[in-house]
């Protein structure tokens, strides 16, 4: 029966090519626009480290004085940690692994005549950074806690930067001049760019940035290397000293494997805050200390720009308009065939049969519209990739989104076909037959 209905639907659609074309076009446009924006939202809220993200947590303390007022137009200082707090959390070693980090942008002197000096973005971090996030290495490895303590001038390059500087040769053991200082290359990391760069400071462009080098945080602080990202100070005087207790600029991540560890870490943060409050350094309630999971932190940071959300709403609104349109066109189409439907009914077809037949016809429009929608969405994503926004280059559709698009289109068009099909199968056959 299904094959027969499919055949009928094809014939009926072929009979009114313009109307069919309009319906397919409307479905395609609505689905295409919505799927473009849904894909953008999907890639922007994706898990940056699948498999590992569930164990990663970031602690946050509130060292602000009581009179400090948070402002809408300025970053929240408690999003980052101060140097003394980060070092205390590191020393306490309450997580399975933990690392403190900050972003840096340094002028790199290639020491080759054919390359001019250029700026590179990288990360200042403590030794556990690589094991904590599972950074894959091509050669060599990271540094040790002893290197951290000694503020050793060592650096890990990513494979792209190593290749740019040293060609295909072995970069490990070479020296790189960053800023004013020489660093010895001890490892080359494979291409590893979490999207978004969840561990970076929230003021950066987290979808397009990538770290090209990693070096010990202690070396960066002792050599006073340039720190990129936000630095929020709340006391007069030593505002610009990196080791100040009144300026937050560091990010901190810890690996916690079990619920017990997570609970213990939460308690530890509150205890630490209480202790600092007793010492007179913290003024606010110790319960202000927070522990975010990776996905929780991304949700808290709300990285998706309002423009993207607005565009999604707009696209869905557009899809709705298209769907109402299709309801109207299908209604016109089905009711025009009242005579044919009445003949079928008179010959013994039940209302349910008519309903299924017309439903299949709308589903067919959905399939065609979905295929067109996939093409339009690809075009839309291509145009987004040409845009200057920092998330633009991520806009790609994966297999699941592709399949989802088709499903979405079929479901939407079947829903759109419900009312017209219901209306058409309630046509009184006798009345129509008499007029024929």
């Amino acid at each position, binding site marked *: 029966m299904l094959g027969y209905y499919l055949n009928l639907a094809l014939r009926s659609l072929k009979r009114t090519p313009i109307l069919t074309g309009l319906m397919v076009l409307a479905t395609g446009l609505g689905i295409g626009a919505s799927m473009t924006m849904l894909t953008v939202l999907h890639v922007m809220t994706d898990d940056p480290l699948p498999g590992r993200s569930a164990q990663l947590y970031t602690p946050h303390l509130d060292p602000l004085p009581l009179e400090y007022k948070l402002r809408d137009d300025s970053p929240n200082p408690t999003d980052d940690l101060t140097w003394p707090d980060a070092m205390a959390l590191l020393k306490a070693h309450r997580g399975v692994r933990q690392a403190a980090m900050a972003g840096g942008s340094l002028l790199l*002197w290639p020491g080759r005549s054919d390359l001019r000096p250029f700026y590179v973005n990288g990360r200042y971090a403590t030794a556990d950074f690589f094991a904590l996030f599972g950074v894959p290495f091509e050669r060599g490895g990271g540094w040790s806690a002893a290197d951290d303590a000694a503020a050793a001038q060592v650096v890990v390059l990513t494979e792209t930067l190593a290749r740019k500087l040293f060609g295909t040769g072995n970069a490990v053991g070479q020296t790189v001049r960053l800023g004013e200082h020489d660093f010895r290359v001890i490892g080359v990391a494979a291409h590893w760019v979490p999207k978004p760069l969840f561990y970076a400071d929230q003021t950066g462009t987290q979808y397009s940035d990538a770290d090209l080098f990693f070096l010990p945080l202690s070396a960066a602080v002792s050599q006073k290397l340039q720190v990129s990202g936000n630095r929020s100070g709340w006391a007069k005087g030593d505002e610009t000293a990196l080791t100040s207790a009144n300026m937050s600029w560091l990010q901190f991540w810890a690996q916690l494997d079990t619920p017990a560890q997570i609970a213990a870490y939460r308690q530890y943060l509150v205890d630490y805050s209480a202790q600092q409050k007793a010492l007179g350094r913290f003024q606010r309630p110790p319960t202000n200390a927070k522990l975010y999971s990776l996905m929780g932190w991304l949700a808290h940071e709300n990285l998706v720009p309002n423009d993207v959300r607005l565009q999604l709403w707009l696209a869905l609104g557009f899809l709705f*308009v298209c769907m109402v*349109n299709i309801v*109207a066109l299908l209604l016109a189409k089905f009711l025009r065939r009242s005579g044919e439907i009445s003949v079928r009914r008179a010959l013994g077809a039940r209302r349910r049969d008519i309903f299924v037949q017309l439903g299949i016809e709308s589903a067919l429009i959905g399939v065609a519209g979905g295929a067109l929608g996939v093409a339009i969405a690809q075009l839309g994503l291509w145009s987004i990739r040409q845009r200057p926004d920092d998330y633009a280059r991520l806009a790609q559709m994966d297999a699941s989104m592709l399949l989802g698009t088709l499903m979405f289109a079929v479901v939407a068009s079947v829903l759109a076909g419900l009312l017209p099909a219901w209306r058409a199968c309630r046509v009184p056959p006798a009345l129509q037959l008499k007029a024929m």
Partner: protein
Amino acid sequence: MEIRPILTSLRKHRIPAALIVLEIALACAVLCNAVFMIGQRVADIHWPNAIDEQGISVVTVNGADPKLAVSDIPRNLVALRGIAGATAVAAATSMPLDHNGALSDFTATPNGKTTVNTSIYFLGSGGEQALGLHLLEGRFFNAEEYADSGSKDFNSTGHVVLITQSDAQRLWPGQSALGKTLYTNDTGWTVIGVVADVLAQDPRFSGPGGRYSSVFFPLHPDGVMGDYVLRSAPQDRARVVREAAQLLGKLESGAVVDGTTYADMRTDYFADTSSMVWMLVLVCVVMLAVTAFGIVGLTSFWVGQRRQQIGIRRAVGASRGHIMQYFQTENFLLSAAGVVLGTALADGINLYLMRYYEITRMPWYYLPVSAVALWAIGQLAVLGPALRAAAVPPVVATRSA
């Protein structure tokens, strides 16, 4: 034109009529808000900026040795002045719209509190002329003030400051700002001049209050200055910036040198805004087209269904004009209902968006304008089917359907 028969006929076709009304209402709601967003963004792109945007070029030097700045910057400036067509040259720390916000809090009283992010600009000698600042009150810096002004942790060690008109009115409403003292914590600077509004380095980050909150300090040659500002006639700027970048590339061989005209810098800052505007325009156009096609489709179906009725009317004396008028009035009534529903919906969506996004209240005139636009689209869409209806010959009435 008698409306009652139209209403009676619509009552018999409730579902199609409701669908057209719904379609127009939705289109009206989405359209109003989309056009409003387009308007807001276009206004953003055209934020005025009281510097000589058309004549300025900027060459940025990164990575020069800061210890040699005292001698290198004057040397570079002398070399840049030699470029044909460059009428003014100066060094500066940053430019409006260059994305590199250097922000601080400034108040009218010592240790006061403010909710405004103020952009700090340090200008080298001649910077006012090179930027083309527009002086409204007071005077620019003199040579002595340039000589004894330094910068420590991005705070001026000098004693004078130029402020913008917006800040002057915000900090000292109803008074002249000249001679007043501007404070950061307990450090003060005397206001010697007020200039027309200059944009912040990153106005979107600074927020509406900080958009035109900019202060200018004088600065003797210093390592924090990375921008060389050149002013020329607009037609010379492309050549001037090219030559300047080449010259500085030779003089500062170890540094990264980037030259751009200010016009390009501005386009670059608003690039994502203008791409959003084009996207919104595209959606609006396509949506209007889809709505129009929907109306055409439904009305055609109606005309087809009523061929006999039209034939009877023609047979008993209705002219083609009467038939045309019938369908156009019918569409007008449906559009009117759609627009009433749509404006209410548009207003609701605007109120919702205001709560969750940075969107202001939609001005009232958006509603009548979009109502007229949709009404016109509806009339245009119904024209074809109405003409076809009018072409139905009266003889159809005598045949059975």
